């Protein structure tokens, strides 16, 4: 009955939404006119993002309206008065473009053109392209990253990777050099929604912490929402990492080959049909076993790699189709156990999908139609057998529409998603031995971006989610941006639900195996986010931002406490809250690009296990979860000395909480009389208060030096560097029973080579 009511509410909401939009848009279009177009880069035929486009009233010469091209190179001036305008497009480093546009009432005029670079302005291109992103350029929890930004951070690979950049952000805690687990502003790894061109990628971070499935070679832009994200995204509790890959060059063939002691890779791209159809493909494979392990004083039994492919079809500028595919694999053991029965974790991601961007000739709606299939298979076992398996398959299809109304736009859309889960856990998880389930869900959203004044934007959104098993949920969201001169104030907030749960025993950091299941107690995990930030640019080359966040988390699934010296995977519900402040300062001098970030975070969970009253005298036990890194500093600098490009990163993190042990004894259940000479009892751990201890601080210095040589056709780059310059023994894991300690990487020198065209 409730279910039927939910369905009816959903249908009513969609119906009203349709009427509202069609009515508003049709009446508006009859009176006014639209000028729009796509801007392409003349060098490769691909869309140019971030171009400033201005319409000037040709009679009065005043700047009338300004826009910036989006990811598809699209600009739209909707609902303008009929008349004659001068359209001017400018982008630092490119020759400006000007043309006169005449538009009549009810008419949609499309102006497509290409822009070409000017060698004299090439340096400015680099500066300007970086300035649309930046370490201190955070807007209500959203930070955008371009491939150029990744080059700032030293890493043992000549092709930078997204993973090293993300771990330099305040509020992001990682498991370190190995494990590939990220905790963003209080959330767990399974609370992060990670998408590549709209396809879910469940475990994209490789087993060695420097690497993800996203190398700079294949990236166009990454939006990292560390909370308060807009209504397009749903189904995850904590954060969104929205990765968009670049398209292959439509005009020239190119490629690269790189070699380093950790990873080597190949990239190929080029047109199949000039200006119409291009492909881009890359492949990377770890070289740790073959090279790095030979000179590092530590066992690194890891294998990983990924391949990526993308086809881009540009039927017209207003009609683009892309197909993307990604496959990743990882394998490794994270403990010091070298026996035959040592357990290792393996995981494989596979994702494929297509997108069709369409801007119809006589419509002011921009449409995006997409579908994707994703799969993650994760196993844990030893040479003899697989002991645990978790498999997730997802099919996703949907539509995103954008209607332009003056300077504002209304984004709305809907999707259908089906997720199939399969776990085989050999009885390790409470009543979750072997499970297969399918979760169909439907979601729709409306997300208007309203420019109330030229300096004030508000983005109130709402998402409706319908789960076949759980019913109907509404998630209100909002983002506000106020900018004036050098100041910017931002805020965001909203409600978020998550239907899938990633079960993992966080008491053992070496255990990255995650079992994806439906909410075990039929309760969806949910969270409220609130973010407020302030940014200032006191001079042209300094940017400072400060942002506070608060997340209230409900119905998290965590392991029950047990005094047995084994990992407990019995589950209990917990609530939690994460709050903190991030501080960022960025300096951009002609020969020095540097930033410092500081994150202050407080995370608290409240467990609700029934026996807590007996054990601790309270029915709700508050504790710091093991990813509560209180202080975090990252200092990054990049400069050029002669022909050499030098990058330095120093990072510091306060110690993570862990549960200390008072001692060990044995336990005998006194439910009967017994002969003490016959009953040995079970070994028991006498734990101190949960997570009351703190591991030592983490800190490390990494340096890399690059030099690029221009060749007749292409470039040759060489990179050298050192990870953990002062050989700090940063702890990765500690077995509190055996005192077996595994440290992060020791001092590691490296050299990398890359040939590129």
């Amino acid at each position, binding site marked *: 009955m409730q279910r039927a009511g939910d369905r009816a509410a959903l249908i009513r909401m969609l119906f009203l939404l349709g009427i509202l939009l069609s009515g508003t848009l049709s009446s508006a279009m009859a009176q006014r006119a639209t000028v729009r177009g796509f801007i392409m880069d003349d060098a490769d035929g691909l869309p140019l993002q971030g171009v400033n486009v201005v319409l000037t009233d040709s009679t009065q010469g005043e700047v009338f309206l300004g826009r910036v091209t989006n990811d598809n190179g699209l600009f739209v001036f909707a609902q303008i008065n009929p008349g004659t305008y001068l359209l001017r497009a400018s982008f630092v480093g490119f020759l400006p473009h000007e043309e006169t546009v005449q538009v009549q009432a009810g008419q949609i005029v499309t102006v497509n053109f290409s822009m070409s670079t000017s060698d004299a302005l090439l340096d400015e291109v680099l500066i300007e392209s970086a300035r649309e992103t930046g370490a201190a350029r955070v807007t209500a929890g959203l930070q955008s990253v371009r491939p150029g930004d990744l080059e700032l951070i030293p890493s043992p690979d000549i092709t930078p990777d997204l993973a090293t950049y993300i771990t330099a952000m305040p509020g992001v805690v990682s498991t370190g050099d190995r494990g590939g687990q990220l905790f963003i502003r209080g959330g767990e790894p399974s609370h992060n929604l990670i998408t590549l061109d709209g396809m879910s990628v469940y475990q994209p971070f490789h087993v060695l912490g420097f690497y993800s499935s996203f190398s700079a070679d294949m990236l166009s832009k990454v939006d990292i929402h560390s909370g308060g994200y807009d209504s397009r995204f749903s189904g995850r509790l904590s954060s969104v990492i929205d990765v968009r890959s670049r398209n292959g060059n439509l005009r020239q063939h190119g490629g690269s080959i790189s070699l380093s002691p950790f990873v080597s890779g190949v990239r190929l791209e080029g047109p199949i049909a000039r200006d119409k159809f291009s492909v881009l493909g890359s492949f990377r494979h770890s070289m740790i076993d073959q090279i790095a392990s030979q000179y590092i004083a530590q066992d690194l039994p890891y294998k990983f790699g990924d391949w990526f492919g993308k086809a881009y079809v540009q039927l017209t500028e207003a009609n683009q189709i892309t197909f993307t595919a990604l496959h990743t694999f990882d394998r490794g053991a994270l403990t010091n156990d070298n026996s035959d029965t040592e357990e290792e974790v393996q995981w494989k991601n596979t994702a494929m999908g297509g997108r069709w961007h369409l801007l119809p000739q006589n419509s002011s709606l921009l449409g995006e139609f997409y579908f994707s299939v994703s799969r993650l298979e994760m196993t844990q076992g030893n040479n003899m057998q697989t002991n645990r398996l978790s498999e997730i398959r997802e099919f996703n299809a949907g539509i995103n529409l954008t209607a332009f109304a003056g300077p504002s736009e209304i984004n709305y859309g809907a999707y259908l998603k089906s997720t199939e889960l399969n776990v085989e856990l050999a009885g390790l998880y409470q009543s979750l031995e072997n499970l297969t389930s399918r979760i169909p869900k439907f979601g729709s959203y409306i997300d208007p971006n309203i420019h109330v004044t030229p300096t004030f934007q508000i983005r109130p959104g709402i998402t409706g989610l319908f789960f076949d098993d759980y019913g109907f949920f509404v998630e209100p969201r909002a983002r506000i941006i106020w900018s004036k001169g050098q100041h910017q104030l931002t805020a965001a907030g909203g409600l978020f639900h998550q239907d899938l749960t990633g079960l993992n025993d966080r008491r053992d950091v070496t255990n990255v195996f995650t079992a994806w299941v439906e909410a075990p107690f039929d309760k969806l995990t949910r969270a409220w986010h609130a973010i407020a930030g302030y940014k200032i640019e006191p001079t042209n080359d300094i940017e400072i931002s400060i942002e506070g966040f608060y997340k209230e988390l409900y119905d998290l699934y965590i392991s029950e406490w047990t005094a047995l010296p084994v990992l407990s995977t019995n589950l209990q519900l917990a609530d939690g809250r994460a709050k903190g402040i991030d501080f960022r300062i960025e300096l951009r001098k002609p020969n020095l690009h540097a930033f410092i970030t500081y994150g202050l975070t407080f995370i608290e969970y409240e467990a609700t296990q029934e026996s807590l009253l007996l054990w601790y005298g309270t029915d709700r036990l508050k504790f710091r979860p093991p990813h509560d890194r209180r202080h975090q500093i990252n200092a990054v600098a990049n400069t050029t000395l002669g022909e050499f490009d030098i990058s330095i990163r120093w990072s510091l993190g306060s110690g993570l909480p862990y549960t200390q042990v008072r001692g060990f004894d044995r336990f005998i259940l006194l439910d009967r*009389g017994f002969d003490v000479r016959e009953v040995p009892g079970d070994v028991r751990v006498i734990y101190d208060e949960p997570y009351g201890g703190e591991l030592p601080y983490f800190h490390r210095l990494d340096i890399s030096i690059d030099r690029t040589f221009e060749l007749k056709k292409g470039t040759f780059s060489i990179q050298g560097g050192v990870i953990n310059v*002062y050989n700090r023994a940063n702890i990765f894991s500690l077995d509190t029973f055996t005192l077996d300690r595994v440290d992060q990487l020791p001092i590691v020198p490296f050299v990398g080579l890359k040939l590129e065209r």
Partner: protein
Amino acid sequence: MKRHASLLSRIGLYFCAALLTLSACTESVHPIIGDERPYTIYGFLDPTTSEQYLRVIPVSEDFNTVSSQDVDAQVHTVDLATDERVAWSKQRILFPDSTEGYVFAAQFTPIVARSYRLEVENSEGERVSAVTTVPPVISINRMASNSQLNPIFFIEADAFPNIVQADFVYEAVALQPSMSARANYTLEIPVSYRGTESPSDGGWRIQTRMQNDFEQVKEAFAGICIITDFLGLRSVNFEFFIGDDNWVPPGGEFVRDILLQPGSFSNVENGYGYFGSGYSVTFSIPLTSTERGLVGYALDPPCQAGPGFDPSVPECRELNACL
């Protein structure tokens, strides 16, 4: 230029010094912080015997040697009515699972209704103590009943005793056809009647039902994936344990996952575990073959395990295929 070079070399020097300092400060971690409580104790005084035993486990900071390390302890009991003090002597025990431990023994018969204080002290003067009052020895009798299969037991006492355990314990065997006799699986399956007492004239009675218990016995075998088509019964005992008044777990039930937490069920001051008093009463229930058959147990399995195994017998073929 010269000044510039000197400045650079000075910066380089400071940098190297800073690196050396940072690399030197590797921090060790001490996850085991020790416990002020020196011992965990398990044992009880039994008024029905003159031999008393007590397990003393030092709280260890070494996971690998827990309970096998020597116990530095002097153990005494004091009769609180007479102040009589008894010294206990230490014995090293090899348990059936090949682990080692230390047990203390004393020769005396505790007196009903008397309170005794246990004192365990180490050479550093750290002391652990517990007090227990010995429960009265009550009379439990099997009543005459129409049905041998559903015997009734009568507890005769002025006040209801603290029945820690009232289990029908079935020693059952699942006959698995095989060439080897080792394929017979024997389990001891307790079925609890604790809490089923009902008041009767001058006491309490417990009604048992063996036919109902048979399903639980089958489930116990099925739970470890043993075929239960041919279940035999070797013996049945009704086992009682009467404990002192404090021998009551929090919540009234003995839930292992809850009681596992150190200190959750303990009367030991400055230590862990439980020192109580109590005694066992056991009844053996003789059943004829016919009675066993009436309950549901197999009498003469058509497929004989062990040397008599004959795969040509249809039942044996069928079972063999399942194994």
